[in-house]
C-alpha cells in the first residue's frame, strides 16, 4: 500500500494540475483508468475512477443523474430528439423523439440508436447498422442536462423578474418593495457602473435590456449551478455551447447596433492607402478583432465556471480516492478536510459567479460602446 501511494498521489496531482491549467483531461482520464487497473490490489475490488467521476459531473448528458444508491441509478430521463440521414436503419423515420430512459443508462439500444460508452463518443448517441456496427452520429437536438438546467433557471429568472416588473408597475413613482427592491439596485448598478461609463450617456439606454438580460441570465445560471440539489446544479455556464450562444448574442447586438462610424472603421479606416489596397490588411485585422471579442467572452465564462465545478468535484472525490486506496477509514478521515475545501471553493465560486457575470456584461458593454460611438 505504501509503495502504491506515491504513484496514485502523482496521478491525482496530474489531474489537479491539468484541471488548473485548463488542459483537456479527456485523454488523461483514460490514462488514469488504464494505469489504475494493473496497479489494483486484490482486496480492492472496486476502484474509483476520479476522471470519470469528475467528468460525469461537468459534462453534458442525456439524463439528469441525481444519485446512485447501491447499483441503482436515480436519474431524470430527458427527451432525446434525433434527426438521422439513415431512416432505413431506424424504422423508416427521419425524426425520432423518445425519452432517454429507453437507453437504460446505455445498457440497451433503442431503434438502432446507441448511447455510446466508448471513449470517442462517450455519452453521445451513435447510429448502429444491422450488425451492431457504429455507422455515424445523427443530428442530435436532444434536451440535454445543460438545456434542462438552462430552462429551470429561465423559469426562476422569469418568476423573479416578472414579480419585480409587476411590483414596478404597481408602485409607480414610489419606492420599490419586495423582490423589486432586490432587483433594482442591480439594475441601477449595471446602468451606473457598466452601461453609462462604457457606452456613454447618450446611447446607453438602447443597450440596457441586452446588458441586463446577459447579466441576470449568466449570474442566475452560475449561482444555480452551485446548488447541488435537483433541479439545480446543472453545469450550464460551464458548457461551451451555452457560452457560445451568449457570446454570439453579444456579437450580434454589437454589429446590428453598430454605427456608421463603426463600419467605416472596419472597412475603410483612416490609414495610409497601402494598408487597405490592394491587400485589405486593416479590414482583415478589424474583422478578426470582431470575431476574437466574442470568442474571448465565450472561453472566459466557460473556463471559469467549468473550473469551479471541477475543483469542487475533485475535492469531494478525494474522499473516495483515499477510501479506495487505504480503506474506508481513510476516506472518513479525509472527508472533513475535503468537505471543508469543497465548501470553501463553493463559496469562492459564488464570488466567481458574480465576477464572471459582471465581466461578461462589462466587456459586452465596452464592445457595444465601441460600436455605437460616433467619433473618437
Amino acid at each position: 500500500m505504501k509503495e502504491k501511494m506515491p504513484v496514485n498521489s502523482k496521478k491525482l496531482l496530474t489531474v489537479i494540475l491539468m484541471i488548473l491549467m485548463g488542459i483537456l483531461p479527456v485523454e488523461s482520464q483514460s490514462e488514469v483508468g488504464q494505469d489504475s487497473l494493473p496497479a489494483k490490489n486484490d482486496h480492492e475490488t472496486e476502484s474509483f475512477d476520479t476522471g470519470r467521476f469528475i467528468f460525469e459531473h461537468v459534462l453534458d448528458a442525456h439524463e439528469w443523474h441525481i444519485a446512485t444508491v447501491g447499483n441503482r441509478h436515480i436519474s431524470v430521463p430527458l427527451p432525446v430528439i434525433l434527426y438521422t440521414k439513415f431512416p432505413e436503419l431506424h424504422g423508416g423515420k427521419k425524426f425520432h423523439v423518445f425519452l432517454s430512459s429507453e437507453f437504460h443508462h446505455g445498457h440497451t439500444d433503442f431503434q438502432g440508436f446507441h448511447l455510446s460508452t466508448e471513449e470517442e463518443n462517450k455519452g453521445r448517441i451513435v447510429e448502429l447498422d444491422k450488425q451492431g456496427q457504429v455507422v455515424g452520429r445523427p443530428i442530435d437536438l436532444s434536451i440535454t442536462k445543460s438545456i434542462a438546467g438552462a430552462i429551470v433557471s429561465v423559469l426562476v429568472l422569469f418568476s423573479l423578474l416578472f414579480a419585480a416588473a409587476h411590483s414596478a408597475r404597481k408602485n409607480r413613482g414610489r419606492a420599490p418593495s419586495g423582490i423589486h427592491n432586490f432587483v433594482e439596485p442591480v439594475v441601477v448598478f449595471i446602468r451606473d457602473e457598466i452601461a453609462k461609463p462604457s457606452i456613454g450617456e447618450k446611447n446607453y439606454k438602447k443597450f440596457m435590456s441586452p446588458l441586463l438580460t446577459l447579466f441576470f441570465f449568466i449570474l442566475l445560471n452560475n449561482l444555480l449551478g452551485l446548488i447541488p440539489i435537483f433541479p439545480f446544479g446543472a453545469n450550464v455556464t460551464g458548457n461551451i455551447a451555452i457560452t457560445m450562444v451568449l457570446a454570439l448574442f453579444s456579437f450580434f447586438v454589437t454589429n446590428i447596433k453598430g454605427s456608421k462610424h463603426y463600419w467605416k472603421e472596419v472597412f475603410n479606416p483612416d490609414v495610409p492607402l497601402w494598408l487597405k489596397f490592394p491587400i485589405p490588411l486593416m479590414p482583415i485585422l478589424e474583422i478578426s478583432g470582431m470575431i476574437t471579442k466574442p470568442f474571448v467572452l465565450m472561453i472566459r465564462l466557460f473556463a471559469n465556471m467549468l473550473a469551479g465545478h471541477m475543483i469542487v468535484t475533485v475535492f469531494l472525490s478525494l474522499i473516495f480516492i483515499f477510501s479506495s486506496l487505504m480503506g474506508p477509514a481513510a476516506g472518513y478521515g479525509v472527508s472533513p478536510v475535503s468537505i471543508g475545501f469543497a465548501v470553501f471553493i463553493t463559496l469562492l465560486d459564488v464570488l466567481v459567479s458574480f465576477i464572471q457575470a459582471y465581466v461578461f456584461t462589462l466587456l459586452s458593454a465596452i464592445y457595444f460602446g465601441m460600436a455605437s460611438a460616433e467619433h473618437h
Partner: protein
Amino acid sequence: MELVTPNVGTIFWMTIIFGLVAFVLKKFAWKPILHALYEREESIENALNAAQKARSEVENLTAENEQLIAEARGKKDAIIKEAITLRDGIIAEAREKAAIELQKGIENARNQIDHEKEKAIQEMKNQITDLSFIIAEKIIRNEMADKKQHQELVSKLIDEIKLN
C-alpha cells in the same frame, strides 16, 4: 475533446431559449422596471428642484425682510436723531430766551431803581428844603433879637447852600 466542442443540439436549443428570454425580458421585465426607475428618478429630481426653488424663495423673502427691518431701523434712528436735535434746539432757544428775559428784567429793575433813587433824592431834597425852612424858621424865631444880623446870616447861609 467533448468538453470544448460545442454541441449542435445545445446551440440550437440555447439559441431558442436565450432569444426568447431576451425578447420576453425586454418586453415584460426591463421595460416596466426601467420605466419605473426613470420615472421615479425624474420625480425625485423634480421634487429636489422644487425644494431648491422653495428654499431660494424663502431665502429671498428673508433677505427682503431683513432689508425691511434694516430700513425701519434706519428710519427710527433718523427720527430719534431729529427729535434729539429738535429738543436740543428748543432747550437752547428757551435758555437763550430766558437769559434775554432775565437781562431785560435786570435792566428794568436797574432802571426802576435809578428812577426811584432819583425820585427819592428829589423828595429828600424837597424835604431837606422844607426842613431847612422849618429849621430856619425856628432859628429865626429863636434869634429875633439880633434880627438884622441874623437875617444877613441866614441869607448868607442859604446862598452858601448849594442844592445838589
